[in-house]
């Protein structure tokens, strides 16, 4: 009886900020919000008029993976996706209108699942390549799905699909490699200070 009372005390005294969203603490949610904001801001700061599909994946997927690598908790990718999606709508990025948010949320959700499958070892270059490429490709697939919903002619969606996939995979992998290198360097330095 006394033992049960002792067990109850720590849960009742638990700070609600430690489990803010998806069992992630408030401090981490704020950090993830910062990464989500960086993703959206980088999209129009580094926008290059080179006409190559998927080139934004280098910094988009790079930042997404960096955030997930530094805060390796389930739901981190989704939170960054939601934040960057909302900001993308506010900034008026993309041609899809409010549906644009899905293009940000889906890669974030997939990142959470893939990181789990690779035991959160995002500091590995090869894991970075695979996850970066796959989440970048998921962004392309979401764009196509949105195109179908918005009644864009199939000819525009199907033509160049192979080329677009290849470029999304390459740029996403590049972003993943950059993220892996940064995670490897930053994680040991931040792990001490980024404790809840």
């Amino acid at each position: 009886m006394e033992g049960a009372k002792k067990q109850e005390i720590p849960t009742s005294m638990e700070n609600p900020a430690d489990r803010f969203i998806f069992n992630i603490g408030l401090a981490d949610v704020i950090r993830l919000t910062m990464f989500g904001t960086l993703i959206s801001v980088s999209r129009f700061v580094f926008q290059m008029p080179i006409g190559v599909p998927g080139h934004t994946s280098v910094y988009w997927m790079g930042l997404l993976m960096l955030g997930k690598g530094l805060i390796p908790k389930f739901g981190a990718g989704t939170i960054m996706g939601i934040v960057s999606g909302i900001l993308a709508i506010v900034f008026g990025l993309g041609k899809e209108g409010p549906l644009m948010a899905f293009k940000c949320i889906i890669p974030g959700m997939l990142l959470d699942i893939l990181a789990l499958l690779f035991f959160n070892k995002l500091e590995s270059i090869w894991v970075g390549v695979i996850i970066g490429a796959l989440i970048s490709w998921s962004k392309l697939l979401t764009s196509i799905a949105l195109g179908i919903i918005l009644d864009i002619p199939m000819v525009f969606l199907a033509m160049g699909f192979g080329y677009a996939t290849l470029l999304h995979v390459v740029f996403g992998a590049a972003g993943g490699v950059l993220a892996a290198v940064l995670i490897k360097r930053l994680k040991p330095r931040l792990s001490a200070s980024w404790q809840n």
Partner: protein
Amino acid sequence: MINRRIVIGILLLTLVVGGAFLFERVTKIQGSQNGKLVPVVQNDKTIAYLDAGVIRQLSCQECELKQGQGASGSDNEVSLSFALGSAGIVDYEYIQVTGLGDSEEFKLKQEEMEDISLSSNSNGTFAMVNKSGGNRVMIKEVARFYAAD
């Protein structure tokens, strides 16, 4: 364990890229065969593809353009010259339009194209219609455009 997953991941990426190119190729071949993806060829090179969705969008654009000029346009129907112009074909001697199956082939010079339009069908294909002949359907399902210099 992680190494095995990395190998599976790389194989998956190879499959994704290969599959995407295969999907595009299959879509082009199947679409060209059933008239849902119509190639526009010039100098033996396919320079564009048209489908019923493109025809609908072009008809909207032409409609807006005509309304701006005071004339009226119709939905799901775009003039052949406007459609070819949007595909980048402006300078040519004649246009050869082929239909699906055993349907007739037409060779049209620029001056003969004024009354000819393309109209989208409900099955994802589009037809070529002569408006001056009481909307006579010339080709029920267009399969290919060839621009001869």
